[in-house]
């Protein structure tokens, strides 16, 4: 069982309470596809991914980024039982979408950097640690149903 401090719970809730899902979600996924281009393998049907400029204005990618970010809402509501909360999504990504779970970590890294760029000095070392811990737990829950 993951132990969360009050600081961690408040920090995570505070971040999600403040962020603009449309901007952050789309920017984070676009960033992932640009910084780690091999992740584009899962987006063959998403239109023009020819270069960074195209990826950044691609509406299908933008929409999907928002979907992924909203996928973290259930983590926020289930911080004390993430494994159960993500069980069905984990099965989906493993058995239907066939996504290599390493990609969850790559997306997490890009989401963190997107947030850092938005929050500036507010994204200090302790906030970074709390947010990274949160994403690590989500990623572990997402990897759980891969067999």
């Amino acid at each position: 069982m993951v132990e969360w401090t009050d600081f961690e719970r408040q920090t995570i809730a505070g971040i999600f309470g403040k962020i603009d899902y449309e901007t952050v979600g789309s920017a984070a996924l676009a960033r992932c596809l640009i910084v780690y281009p091999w992740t584009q393998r899962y987006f063959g049907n998403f239109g023009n991914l020819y270069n960074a400029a195209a990826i950044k204005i691609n509406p299908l990618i933008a929409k999907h980024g928002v979907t992924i970010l909203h996928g973290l809402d259930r983590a926020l509501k289930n911080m004390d039982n993430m494994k159960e909360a993500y069980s069905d999504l984990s099965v989906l990504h493993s058995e239907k979408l066939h996504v290599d779970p390493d990609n969850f970590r790559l997306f997490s890294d890009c989401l963190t950097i997107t947030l850092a760029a938005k929050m500036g000095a507010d994204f200090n070392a302790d906030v970074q640690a709390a947010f990274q811990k949160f994403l690590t737990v989500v990623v572990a829950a997402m990897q759980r149903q891969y067999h």
Partner: protein
Amino acid sequence: MLSKKEKKMILRIWERITPVAQDIGAEALLRMFTTAPGSKTYFSHLDISPRSPHLLSHGKKIVLALSEGATDISQLSVTLAPLQTMHAYQLRIDPSNFKHLSYCMLVTLACHLGDDFMAEAHAAMDKYLSAFAAVLALKYR
């Protein structure tokens, strides 16, 4: 692989950062110590509390080395030769820590450069830091 455009982006970022080398370096180190506590074990002989003189001076050294390497990336193995020897035979820092510090450096740059740290710059810098770390670890075995 780094394109000419990417090498220019990397150089421009380090030119912006060099005047505040100690602040950026100290912040990246502090982020690493907070998110990867195992990295603190290499600093038991120093005071690495936030803004300590040791942290600032050490952060400055690291940023200046990164900045110097960026002036001629094709010559990294020449520029870094003395640091390679130091890390392999004296410091013997486990190379997984290079990854932690590189990532925390990216986060620090994002916090300070904001929107200027766009995806293309992030990609270029990530590639540069990975190459730097790989060269640094070359003499390990």
